[in-house]
């Protein structure tokens, strides 16, 4: 299968790799997927004034899963929580030119960012 230039760039040079302290008050961390399915994504966000100040990811998965995560961290930094939650999996798949067989990777990345924001919100409640 041939990969797009965009996937290869994020896959070979992933951006924003890392983790955050999940116990800190200003972070949100989420893990989605399962090892048995071949994909696990971990997303961490640092929030300041309802805005994503920083985002990090770690991923166990195929090239498209790693690229989707890397792309999404770049995309959400600087966005408000509301704006970030509105990023669709379709826009990720389009930006990376993912083939249909890999669309689930973009779905998973979107679930991961949503989960991280929810995790942050829970801490504030």
């Amino acid at each position, binding site marked *: 299968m041939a*990969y797009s230039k965009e996937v290869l760039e994020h896959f070979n040079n992933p951006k924003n790799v890392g983790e955050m302290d999940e116990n800190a008050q200003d972070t949100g961390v989420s*893990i989605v*997927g399962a*090892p048995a399915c071949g994909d*696990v994504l971990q997303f961490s966000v640092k929030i300041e004034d309802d805005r994503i100040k920083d985002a990090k990811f*770690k991923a166990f998965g*195929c090239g498209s899963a790693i690229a989707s995560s890397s792309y999404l961290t770049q995309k959400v930094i600087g966005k408000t929580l509301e704006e970030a939650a509105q990023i669709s999996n379709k826009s990720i798949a389009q930006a990376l030119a993912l083939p249909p*067989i890999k669309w689930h990777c973009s779905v*998973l990345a979107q679930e991961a960012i949503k989960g991280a924001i929810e995790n942050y919100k829970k801490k504030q409640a």
Partner: protein
Amino acid sequence: MTNKPSVYFDYAATTPCDASVLKAMEPYWNECFGNPHSRSHAYGWDAESAVERARTQVAWAINAQSDEVIFTSGATEANNLAIKGFVLGPNMPKNKKKILTFATEHKCVIESFRFLKSMGFEVKILPVLSNGLVDLDMLENELDDAAFLSIMYINNETGVVQDIGAISKMCRAKGVCLHVDAAQAVGKIPVNARDVDLLSISGHKLYGPKGIGALFVSKSPRVRIASLFSGGGQERGMRSGTLPTVLCVGLGAAVELTLERMKEDFERAQHFQQQVIDQVINKLPEVYINGAIDSKIPHILNISVPYVEGESLIMRMHEFALSSGSACTSKSLEPSHVIRAMHPDNEDLAHSSLRVCFGRQTKAEDVDALIRALQKHIEELRSLSPLWSMVQKGIDLKTINWQAH
């Protein structure tokens, strides 16, 4: 080629046709083009004598008689013909319905058994041990009321070699017909057809052409099988269709060459395998060999790199042509059924497997480059992996409530 050629490490998938094999085939495309079944002129006789010479070469390689060798389009057809041909044929005992195979077999074998199940036969797909070997005690019990067993000599994903000698004795003692898929075995280890009733061979796995294979059908003891194709009754009535003289000649030449080179090929593969074991398996933490190291051929090395997904590793190793049974590479999005069958309690390993094969064209510097790339990319991808990071923190991944998707 459309992409920049990478260094080939996928010899279990296929091998390039050897130059001397190509040369032997050359006259049979258009010079000696006759139909080997034509009886009335020299074009036919010449083609027939070439085909019969090839048949003898194949027979000689497996310790068979030439009239026990049937040419087929490849190992998939040979396996189909052996399995369906026996079970639907005149030698199938009327009072037995049970037929056996293993979960690590090639898809064409497993699918042939599924087909027979749909026809009412009692199909049992047996498990294997975690090292890929057959549990001989279990097999002996299962053979009691069985009519037929199909097993591969050497597994195409792990290189594990089954004890065909012992299995043959059990089958003979219990009157069970034994079919062996030897597609990966001929040319790697000595193969003795006298131990079995039916045996499949593939041309393109042994530096011969694609589109040709053979089925050994024993005459002593005599095994009779039904044909799958209706036609002119070629190949002693078992496989109708005009034989492709040029491909038969290629198979014969390739088999002969592969036997001549067997020892040398084996020793080279052994040397390369040992380097990967020393520099990757023993050097990096938690990298494992799939399959019994003391009962496998060195030409195929299947490794599991837990916490790294197989396809991502292969994608990083794009300078090398490798394969993985992992989720994303196959069209079915299924992880390797072979590795899964060996580790039913640990599906993760199947997502993390990588197959490296050494062949005749493999050079020492290619193996050095492969080793360096494996070391680099395994380390980098693990630094990206949330699973690796959890394990480093002492978290047991089994205690986590994963949401399957």
